[in-house]
């Protein structure tokens, strides 16, 4: 490993890492928002999407951001002020915490916790509190229904998310995300270790369940009941204006970027690219770019689902979670466990 020329005190390192993370998330939300929500969706609907702001409409999101910042911050009269004000912050906190363990390179991770994957799944369940607060705080019937629906859905889909990830954990033997990447780099499939062994090859069922569960965690169609425009008109976000709505938007796209990152770490081999030995320091440089490409691939899939499918009803959604996804995930764990012991 390279040693840095200057010796950074512990708190300086964390400060730098914090600043990097604090910059990465908004830009990630912008890039994801622009590339997929604007351009890809428009091309799928045979139109061009925004073309006015900046070349090919690239600065459209910045223009929107400024627009939202100067909007008036409206509180509904009967709303519970503190709960209403704090809800978007809680949702955003859970997004920021996701990035703590997302590895972009051997050393390029804020703090690689021993139980990294478990930390991700625990923090993902934090946003339920924020959503319930938003639903309850805005004193609006539609918001309350949206909040309750969101809580039911997020909890129901936490389980398949955890179980799908366990398949990978069994194969990698560790919860630490960086170690999972190394395990995928050095592992070999039936003796042939040439290009490393991303777990998607054996864990395809786990990958499918993980994607469906991520789609539900992000409340995107076909699981976007909480913000169903045509039914409850925006769900728990209906009363929010100005930069609070910005928090929700950044939370949504930040989490999408983070979950796509986690999916690419678990199933597509993280920052590792065949051809280089995983221990070399080069990965600190090219790691982020490799991860970016993989994240873009995974989120392309996520947003493709979003632009094509209609919405499920809650009872169908719960049935899908409890009767289809969880049994499948358990089956996947059993099979992986048995194979792990045999092979």
């Amino acid at each position, binding site marked *: 490993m390279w040693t840095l020329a200057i010796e950074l005190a512990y708190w300086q390192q964390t400060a730098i890492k914090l600043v990097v993370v604090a910059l990465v998330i908004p830009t990630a939300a912008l890039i994801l928002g622009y590339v997929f929500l604007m351009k890809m*969706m428009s091309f*799928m*609907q*045979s*139109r061009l999407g925004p073309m006015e702001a900046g070349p090919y409409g690239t600065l459209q999101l910045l223009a929107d951001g400024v627009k939202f910042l100067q909007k008036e911050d409206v509180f509904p009269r009967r709303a519970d002020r503190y709960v209403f004000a704090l809800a978007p912050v809680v949702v955003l906190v859970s997004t920021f915490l996701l990035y703590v363990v997302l590895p972009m390179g051997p050393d390029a991770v804020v703090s690689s916790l021993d139980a990294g994957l478990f930390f991700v799944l625990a923090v993902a369940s934090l946003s339920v509190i924020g959503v319930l607060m938003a639903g309850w705080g805005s004193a609006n*019937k*539609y918001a309350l*229904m949206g909040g309750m629906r969101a809580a039911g859905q997020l909890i129901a889909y936490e389980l398949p998310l955890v179980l799908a990830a366990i398949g990978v954990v069994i194969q990698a033997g560790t919860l630490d995300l960086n170690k999972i990447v190394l395990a995928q780099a050095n592992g070999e499939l039936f003796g042939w270790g040439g290009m490393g062994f991303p777990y998607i090859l054996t864990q395809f069922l786990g990958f499918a369940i993980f994607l469906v569960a991520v789609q539900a965690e992000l409340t995107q*169609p*076909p699981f*976007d*009941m909480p913000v*169903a*425009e*045509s*039914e*409850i*008109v925006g769900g728990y976000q209906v009363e929010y204006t100005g930069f609070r709505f910005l928090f929700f938007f950044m939370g949504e796209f930040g989490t999408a970027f983070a979950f796509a990152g986690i999916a690419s770490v678990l199933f597509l081999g993280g920052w590792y690219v065949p051809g280089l030995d995983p221990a070399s320091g080069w990965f600190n440089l090219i790691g982020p770019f490799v991860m970016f490409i993989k994240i873009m691939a995974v989120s392309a899939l996520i947003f493709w689902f*979003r*632009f*094509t*499918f*209609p*919405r*499920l*009803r*809650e*009872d*169908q959604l719960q049935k899908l979670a409890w009767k289809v996804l969880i049994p499948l995930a358990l089956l996947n764990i059993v099979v992986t466990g048995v194979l792990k012991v045999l092979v």
Partner: protein
Amino acid sequence: MSVTEREQRAFIAAAAADARVNVELETEGMTLNIGPQHPATHGTLRIIARLDGEQVVAAEPVMGYMHRGYEKLAEVRTYPQVTTLINRIDWLGSFANEVPFILAAEQLMEVEVPPRAAWIRTILFELSRLANIALFLGDMGVQLGALTPVFFAFRDREFVLNQIEAVTGGRFHPNFDRIGGLKDDLPKGWIEETRGVMVKMRTFCDELEDLLMGNEIFEARTRGVGVIPADIALSYGLSGANLRASGVDWDMRRDNPCGLVYDQLDWKVWTHPDGDSFARYWVRLQETREATYMVEQMLDGLPAGPVMAKVPVIIKVPAGEAYVATENPLGVMGYYVVSKGDLGPFRVKIRSASFNNISVTPWVMRGVYVPDVITILASLYFILGDIDR
């Protein structure tokens, strides 16, 4: 507290407790206004839904937010002026609104329309049906959450509107129908263009069939939702595709063509036995395809000849009354015209399809979930102007 008082209170409390022991989880129904301002209602319809949790106990539509008083307005206008008025009732397929009124007036005046005018009228009638139903096919998707179909619908509907505009001059409000014939003849090269548009519309139908109708999620959301049996549909006076989706084989174009040329074409009336939201969507998709084939047949067999019969310039319809109903894109639309022989009609009663199509909602929405309320509203496919007139 004296003994008797405590016993009395204990007795009352015990009785109250027993009475309530097996009461439902009483979250004492929340009334939700799927209000006049809501994306799922095509205009300003308000549904007062009493909910128990997510299930609808009772739903009651409230109409009249868009009542413009057409029937009264028609009484103070001359006949040509009334046509500019009534094509704003069902603003999506607006040429189809003018035709029954003009047919009723012609019936009163005993004017024989030249064959070419009748054929062109039927072509434009079917084109306005295409424009109207194409939007529904896409809109059903957006009500259920799919974002892309509605853009396909608007994109391909644009071609049909271009053709209507090329002939009549107006995309939405043609004002092309006159008593005794049409205002003008078809422009040159229009027939070949329309054939091309018909091919585009058929690819649009295939795309939507793949994108939406085949989709398991769409089927899960619509099959068995909002089932309307045939007798209920008839008793509520449903008409159009909603009726044919409940298995009733009744189509005004075939049963009483009255002035349009449907009897000279060979086409099929599509029905579906189930009567649920899926069936209504399926029937409308097949009818769109059928309309494209019909238009192509009419383009082939278009007779030559004049477009306008001999009609005095200042029209005075002789006294009398006439009722003519045709199969509009939304259902059966009829005009009952009473004339006292002066410049304008004395009284015009408009029977519009969506008014009856919506009256079935209290029956069909008992005990459904909130998202299904939106699915049923989307599948019944009403236009607010048509309801409130």
